[in-house]
């Protein structure tokens, strides 16, 4: 794909210098529009409770779910609220799911003195067989049992259940459905090969320098310094680079300055300062050659709650001098050359991973698309801004490329929806661990991983 056209001239540079080496112009951006306004917060006020976000989420998704329920179980089914339930009557209820988990970290338990609990160490998964599902609507809640996979679902999902209320007060589920893939967007993609490079988890500032050469090789390929002429001309078709979070490594997050005595940390600099300087230089090299969108991630110097606001340009003085640098939010939505991209830096997927039996990041990514919501577990277990007017994480239209960053490995899948939707699902791997980035071809929605490596003392490559 990327390199087939390059093959003929592969060995061309193993020769004495030729007269005029060609330079290739970067394919210009034909259409770009940033659609992440819902994720940009202006004035922020945290005085509201989180109940409002659940209320608007349910109100926003209820119509779509009712339509889905009717199309699935018949138009004559009765849609009831929980307060209208009658014992034994088969009906359909739309509500928010709550999963009661014993192992879920609770701050109240931690600080409670009567329990005398040592704070629970972070576990990879918090699920247990004894977890229970509860459906809540605007006024009441009811326990669910029956044909529903308790382990797989997570808190905050809006779903429709079909069944009947039992005498013991529980709801016996016969079938349930999620919101399904949102309505499709028209396709205006390019007719020639155009690539977008997706990379995440650069992890600058980490103690080990193994990934540094790979990062440099990545920059060199994109800016057209590396490779023979064929490869360079292919690289000129990379129209954009999206860095999906975790530009800084987790090591830069040390909180020594808070824990240690002042006299020990007086003249020490935060590790993130050096790392951000390195990031600035790398971004400068990229920005002089290609438009770059930088999304913040879990370990980046921005706010913790979703939606994460863009990094401030004062941290990147060299790179922000160029108009090709765009500092964007997490999640990020944009139209690139007529193709709608939507993606996050991976916090939403990894949070669902912790509270669900699903193990595969791609499976979880697909599941969030089917559930119609980017991050159902926010604000329960994932920090979120207390929205009250509308929930911006509800998926109202189906993107063409849906990605998540910082996944353990690269995976991609082209999903076909019932209404003609075509979505490319991509899990972008953590670059500092895998030295792999993704190249998405906008023409045919295919994705290819690109791996970089140097040589070590005992490597066999």
């Amino acid at each position: 794909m990327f390199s087939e056209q390059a093959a003929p001239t592969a060995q061309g540079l193993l020769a004495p210098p030729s007269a005029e080496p060609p330079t290739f112009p970067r394919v210009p951006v034909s259409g770009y529009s940033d659609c992440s306004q819902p994720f940009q917060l202006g004035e922020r006020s945290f005085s509201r409770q989180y109940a409002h976000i659940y209320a608007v989420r349910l109100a926003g998704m209820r119509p779509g779910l009712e339509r889905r329920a009717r199309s699935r179980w018949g138009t004559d089914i009765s849609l009831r609220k929980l307060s209208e339930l009658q014992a034994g009557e088969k009906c359909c209820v739309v509500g928010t799911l709550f999963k009661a988990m014993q192992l879920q970290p609770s701050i109240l338990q931690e600080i409670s003195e009567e329990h005398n609990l040592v704070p629970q160490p972070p576990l990879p998964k918090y699920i247990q067989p004894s977890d229970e599902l509860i459906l809540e609507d605007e006024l009441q809640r009811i326990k669910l049992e029956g044909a529903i996979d308790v382990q797989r679902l997570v808190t905050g999902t809006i779903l429709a259940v079909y069944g009947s209320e039992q005498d013991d007060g529980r709801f016996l589920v016969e079938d349930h459905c999620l919101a399904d893939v949102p309505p499709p967007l028209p396709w205006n993609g390019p007719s020639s090969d155009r690539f977008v490079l997706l990379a995440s988890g650069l992890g600058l500032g980490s103690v080990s320098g193994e990934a540094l050469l790979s990062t440099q090789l990545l920059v060199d390929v994109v800016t057209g310094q590396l490779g023979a002429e064929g490869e360079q001309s292919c690289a000129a078709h990379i129209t954009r680079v999206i860095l999906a979070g975790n530009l800084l490594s987790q090591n830069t997050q040390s909180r020594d300055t808070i824990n240690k005595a002042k006299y020990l940390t007086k003249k020490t600099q935060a590790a993130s300062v050096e790392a951000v300087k390195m990031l600035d230089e790398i971004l400068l090299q990229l920005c002089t050659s290609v438009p770059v969108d930088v999304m913040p991630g879990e370990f980046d110097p921005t706010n913790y709650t979703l939606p994460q606001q863009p990094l401030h340009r004062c941290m990147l003085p060299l790179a922000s001098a160029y108009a090709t640098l765009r500092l964007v939010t997490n999640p990020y939505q944009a139209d690139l050359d007529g193709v709608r991209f939507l993606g996050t830096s991976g916090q939403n997927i990894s949070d669902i991973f912790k509270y669900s039996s699903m193990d595969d990041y791609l499976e979880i990514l697909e599941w969030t698309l089917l559930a119609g919501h980017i991050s159902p577990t926010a604000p329960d277990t994932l920090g979120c801004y207390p929205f009250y007017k509308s929930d911006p994480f509800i998926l109202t239209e189906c993107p063409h490329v849906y990605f998540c960053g910082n996944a353990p490995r690269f995976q991609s899948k082209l999903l076909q929806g019932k209404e003609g939707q075509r979505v490319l699902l991509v899990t972008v791997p953590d670059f500092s661990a895998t030295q792999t980035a993704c190249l998405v071809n906008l023409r045919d929605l295919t994705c290819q991983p690109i791996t970089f490596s140097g040589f070590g003392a005992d490597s066999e490559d």
Partner: protein
Amino acid sequence: MADELYLENIDEFVTDQNGVVTYKWLSYTLGVHVNQAKQMLYDYVERKRKENSGAQLHVTYLVAGNLLQNGHVCHKVAVVREDKLEAMKSKLSTIASVHVYSIQKALLKDSSPLYNTDYDIVKTNLQHCSKFSAIRCAAAVPRTPPDAPRAPASAQSPQRQRDPDAAGAVNGHGPSAAKPPPQQHKGIMGMFAAKAASKPQDTHKEAKAEAKEAPGVSAASSKPPTKNNIMNNFFGKAAMNKLKVNSVPEQPKEEKEVVKPSVAVAEPESSPNTVAQKPGKKTESARIQQKDKKSKTKRADRSDDEEERDPENVKKKRKRIKQLQSDSSDEEDVPPSPTPEEERAPSPPPVPALKTELEPASTEGSAGGRKRKRKRVLKSKMFIDEEEGCMGKTG
């Protein structure tokens, strides 16, 4: 010919300096297109190997191509040592590019020297890092300065135009590669420095104006310059020296002009307006006075004539004092100010004698002059503070 020249260059770098020559390093050093650099390296290796001169050359190659991995076709880009080149090429199903990555004399254990060489050369050429690249991006233009908003820019631009030299001299900030932060620095510092430089001129202007206007108005107008004096302390000894130099010729000038009292009045009068700053200054000034003397003596040592200076100051103080005494002493802040100033025990021998005579009024008069010196000391105190901090660490 240029052809042979590059061969000699590479030869020099590799054999004499025993360094790692990567294609990128060569490209920046010789100012050639990256592809030409790669070809030059290849050419050099070929010729050297033909010559069989005995010097061992180790070469690393870049190989890129398609690889079947985990069920999908992965594009692999790898830097390999020469001995592993064929192995890597055989692994790839399609080869997209092969070229020389670097030449060095020593056998490399791992690729970190390559990274280091590239990092260093890019760091020194950050401003034109895509100059020799094979891809040109038309959209990559620096943002025009108005796009990068700097709030103080508009406020201080008129002053900057007035005193660009003063700002440059005081700041010592040269224009640097990264534009926005140093310019902002320059802007903010320049604003204060410009105000500092313009302050003597301002006081001249205001002195003339005050002759006509009521003191109240002049107090208001003198407030900014006084404030600037307080804040100027934080900037550069150069600023202080400049102020000092300005104030010393100022004083003789003021002696000649009749507007002296208004100036002296203006400054103490302005302090009621800056009462908030005064108490803060007083607590510092108590300690400052001691250091004030120290710094004064220091400065006196720096300039040759210690005794000349003191009598001068004393004289000026005397003259000021007399004029202040003649005016009505209805400045409320003046009585409080003697208390910290009376603590200025360690003063040069001739001065205390005069001081005891003119104590209450001397403080008034010196309030104006002392104010300036107090400000100076405020700034030098900061230096001592920093020194103590450093000494505390080392000691």
